[in-house]
């Protein structure tokens, strides 16, 4: 066993883990943060995307021990004060989901895109940047709309952006 200490959604966490434990297993099974999903488990689908030190990563391909001393944000950590994050609100408003399985990863990726590329995102940029996230329901059309709208909304909500 190896001891890991990290900050998850603003809270300090320390636990003894088997070295083999994936970050996504640690989040789901140890911390019971089951919003982060496991889709393919082969770094393809993006259902497990979380932010590690502010960058979007596939938590199925990171060991929990590699995240020691890091700051992790999951889908559970982005709403503030009972209000949905603007990107979450945009996915609801634009019906950017059907079954919802890919949604946590989509939203965490979308916020990362805004962090890197700014609030004015064209469709081509969004589609290219979402290539690491698979959705098997919607055909992406409403997801792309939601990301564009959520990106705009994030510009209007600087406090929420800073909160991460």
């Amino acid at each position, binding site marked *: 066993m190896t001891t890991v200490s990290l900050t998850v959604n603003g809270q300090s966490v320390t636990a003894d883990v088997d070295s083999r434990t994936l970050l996504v297993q640690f989040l789901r099974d140890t911390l019971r943060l089951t919003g982060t999903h496991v889709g393919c488990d082969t*770094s*393809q689908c993006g259902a497990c995307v979380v932010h*590690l030190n502010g*960058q979007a990563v596939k938590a199925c391909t990171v060991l929990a*021990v590699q995240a020691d001393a890091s700051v992790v944000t999951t889908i559970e950590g982005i709403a503030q004060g009972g209000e949905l994050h603007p990107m979450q609100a945009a996915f609801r408003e634009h019906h950017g989901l059907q079954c919802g399985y890919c949604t946590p990863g989509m939203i965490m990726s979308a916020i990362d895109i805004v962090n890197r590329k700014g609030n004015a995102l064209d469709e081509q940029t969004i589609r290219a940047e979402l*290539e690491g996230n698979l959705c098997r329901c919607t055909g992406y059309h409403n997801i792309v709309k939601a990301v564009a709208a959520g990106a705009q909304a994030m510009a209007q909500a600087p406090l929420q952006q800073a909160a991460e």
Partner: protein
Amino acid sequence: MYAFDYHRPTSVKEAANLAGQSEEAKFLAGGHTLLPTMKLRLAGPASLIDLGQIAELRGIQRSGDAITIGAMTKHAEVASSADIRAAIPALAELAELIGDPHVRNRGTIGGSVANNDPSADYPAACLALDAAIVTDKRRIAADDFFQGIFTTALDEGEIITQISFPIPAQAAYAKFRNPASRYALVGVFVAKHAGGVRVAVTGAGSNGVFRVPEMEEALSRNFAPEALDGIAVAEDEMNSDIHADAAYRAHLVGVMARRAVEAAAARD
């Protein structure tokens, strides 16, 4: 995944010592090949030596006529580096074509080069740019480093610390991606140096990354796509799989080489 002992050294020296103490140790860089391989139980190292906390392995420096990149520098860092964009834009563009944004936030140049996957992008850049692969023990020319599929000049326990790329006059990388894996079905890196042109091909060769001397000679005389007319690579030295047969890959080498020359020549 099989169980392993996990180590997190903070210096290259400590990492090398750990490797010397353990049989069947593996170095963990970005982990985007090794961890999936371990999940499939195709690899089962007894110990894993994580290079992620070694500060001396990170960073990008420009010094006169070369760009030097620390082995643990991530693809996203190469893609967004202003120094690399200015000096060798083809290298930044190549990094941006690897995997997807999440993979680029974890995968490292040193890991890619050490693994020498026959469809990886960086080996083509190293060969065409005449890079030096610097380890904790020596400096290895790219021409001597890549020795066939998943095979390199690295000794057991040897650690890549940096990769140093001479800045070319012009260069470009043209990649035909597998749309699912985003690996190169065929990728061609063309670089024009003061001493001549170098052309390196990844994804296509049955023995991994390779140079094409006929193309290099023709392009050294005339750096234009039409200089490649009539030059073809041998089909029997190409990969064949469900994604593309050898004849198609051989054809794509010619097409990608032309596109790379066109893009390189259009840079100024």
